């Protein structure tokens, strides 16, 4: 796969994580939004480690800093203070283009609102994650179809998101997140917009794929039943890790 990555990815030279036990190491991570009177302290000195292949649930009330933590782990934002090491590399030291390449190669995202591109079919939405890698059209299409088959949507590949149910859309989003064989899947309330049964199905799919691919999963949720499926639960409160238990 990596031989198809474009220039930024090649420059990054992401290290294989096989020989490392810890995928993430967070030390004193603080995130502040706004300035002056409007300043909001979203994270306050968070220390956390996530091991390779772990399934971690991050829970907590609204405003506790769960989503902020997830965005920092995904390289979508930078901490105000502290350090986040991914596979031993400090994300704060990476340029924007390097962070972009890292997200392309190593991190998969699943969002509560699915965030599919409405004008593209299911297959094209998966292809959207493969397009920057420079894969040939045929290979890109075949891989997208294979991923859709993995999530049980082989027959729905030519449907637009608006023609798919919520569960199907989230499965397309999971296929897209896994397109570049990431080392970690970051999911923000992946079942939040689904009914219980569909949510269970999506969760089961995530579990299966993480086992099959030795994938690290970090999942933010409000739902205790979802959290119960994880091997470890990190409970957030007021921007801090309240409990961190297996």
């Amino acid at each position, binding site marked *: 796969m990596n031989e198809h990555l474009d220039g930024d990815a090649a420059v990054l030279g992401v290290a294989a994580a096989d020989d490392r036990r810890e995928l993430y190491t967070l030390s004193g991570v603080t995130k502040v939004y706004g300035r002056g009177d409007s300043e909001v302290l979203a994270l306050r000195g968070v220390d956390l480690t996530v091991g390779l292949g772990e399934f971690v649930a991050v829970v907590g009330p609204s405003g506790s800093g769960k989503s902020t933590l997830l965005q920092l782990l995904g390289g979508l934002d930078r901490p105000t203070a502290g350090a986040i090491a991914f596979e031993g590399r400090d994300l704060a030291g990476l340029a924007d283009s390097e962070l972009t390449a890292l997200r392309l190669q190593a991190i998969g995202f699943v969002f509560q609102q699915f965030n599919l591109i*409405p*004008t*593209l079919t299911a297959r094209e939405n998966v292809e959207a994650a493969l*397009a920057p890698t420079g894969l040939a059209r045929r290979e890109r299409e075949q891989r997208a179809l294979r991923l859709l088959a993995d999530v049980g949507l082989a027959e729905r590949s030519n449907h637009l998101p608006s023609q798919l149910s919520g569960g199907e859309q989230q499965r397309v989003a999971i296929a897209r997140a896994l397109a570049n064989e990431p080392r970690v899947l970051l999911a923000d309330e992946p079942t939040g917009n689904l009914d219980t049964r569909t949510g269970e199905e999506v969760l089961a799919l995530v579990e299966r794929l993480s086992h099959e691919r030795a994938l690290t999963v970090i999942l933010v949720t409000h739902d205790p039943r979802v959290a119960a499926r994880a091997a470890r639960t990190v409970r957030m409160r007021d921007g801090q890790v309240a409990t961190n238990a297996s």
Partner: protein
Amino acid sequence: MFYVRYALAELRRRKARTLLTALVLATGVGLVVAVTALSRGLDEAQERVLEPLTGVGTDITVTRPLRLDSSSGGSGGPSQLSEVEQRRLEAENGDQRLGLTGLGQPGERFRRDRFLSAQLSYPENTAQAVAAIAGVQAVARELTLNVMRVSGTVPTASEQGGGVIRRGFGAGAGGGPPRTIAFTGFTVTGLDTANPALGLVTPSQVRKGRYFRGASPREALLADSYANRKKLAVGDKVKVGSRTFRIVGIVTSPLGGRGSDIYLPLAQLQGISGRKGRVNTLRVRAASADRVATVGSAIESKLDGAEVTTAADLAKRVSGSLVDARNLAHNLGVVLAVVAIASAFAIAVLLTLSGVNKRVRELGTLKAIGWPRRLLVRQVVGESLAQSALGGVVGAVLGIAAAALVAALAPDLTASTGRMQTAGSAGAAPPGPGPQFGPPGPFGQGAVAPLTRSVSLSAPVDPQLVALAVVLALAGGALAGIVGGNRAGRLRPAEALRSVE
């Protein structure tokens, strides 16, 4: 290709915005095409109108006008001349008093022609000096004079008054001529028969009969308007001064009324007017069009008091609805086109920015899943280019349609030239058709009338212009795309994902 499919899908999804942006650019492009086509049509119309003026092969006309005294008022009569110029004019034309003695016995009929020049003259060999100027290809000599014809019956002693008739310029007090004497006037030009293609009248302007044969035969050409008025035709005879000439051709008057009533070989006119070896107009052809200005300047500096008139100067003297429309197209039209295209660009940029703002979450998602900035910029630019290409094509069609509409309606425009200020005629001639004499007399050619020509307007569309217009639209699209794409590229993914569409 994925990116193309994505771009087209986006344009289809946001149909209204796509069409609006394309329409805005189309309007700008259409206006540019239509205005430019109209402007070009007006240029061509003017060229057609000016052809009789400029197509005779003369690039430069050299005269030696009298200088008016700007401190005095009046309508251009000799009283406006400085004393020096009045003396020069007197010297040029001699004593214009016509003594009644010697005309014959009282009651006898008489006819006398007096030749008056509206300008100062040069020695004939000045033409050789001009011909020696670098860039001059050919020079033709010319002499144009007003003829004051006094005719009637010799008055009796009681009718004679002071015994002297003085009309034309410098008419003094004295109560005017006796009633038995009439004054008429016409203009006559002596043509350089050695350079028939370079002159006020050329062989191509002969409508009936033929041009002169030989060096200086006793032949005359008549302007068609004068021939009609006097009911003269080819084969008839006309008397000028002391000589009689056979009419060998009828010529069309060039636009602008610059023509004379009668044309004679130069030597003949010089002989009968007592101006042997003198000319008052030189017609010069430059070696190339781009040397006209240089040659004109050289002539002005070489010849004392010379006034140089080029074809471009003549063009400025054309008036009428054609010129009004052309000026409108060149001034307001160009401004309108520039404003339209600039506005179209600005609106396209704003619409693209607005489109990016509406897609913040989508574009933020693409950033989150690893799309680099350059790909996002390229995507937005590509979409913008696609819709601008549509706008360019629609605009070109609109422009062509507008031009075709103008051609279909083909409104007639008129181009008029008043009395040309040739040969130093600084004053305006009095209105009214037909031969005239009297004030301002020598300051206008007198016998000329303004001409008006009507031309149908067309708006030819140049394929290169259409291509340019489409390129212009694409440039507008590229500009909008780059601005919008950079906005998209600068999105912070975390903030973009928090936005609600």
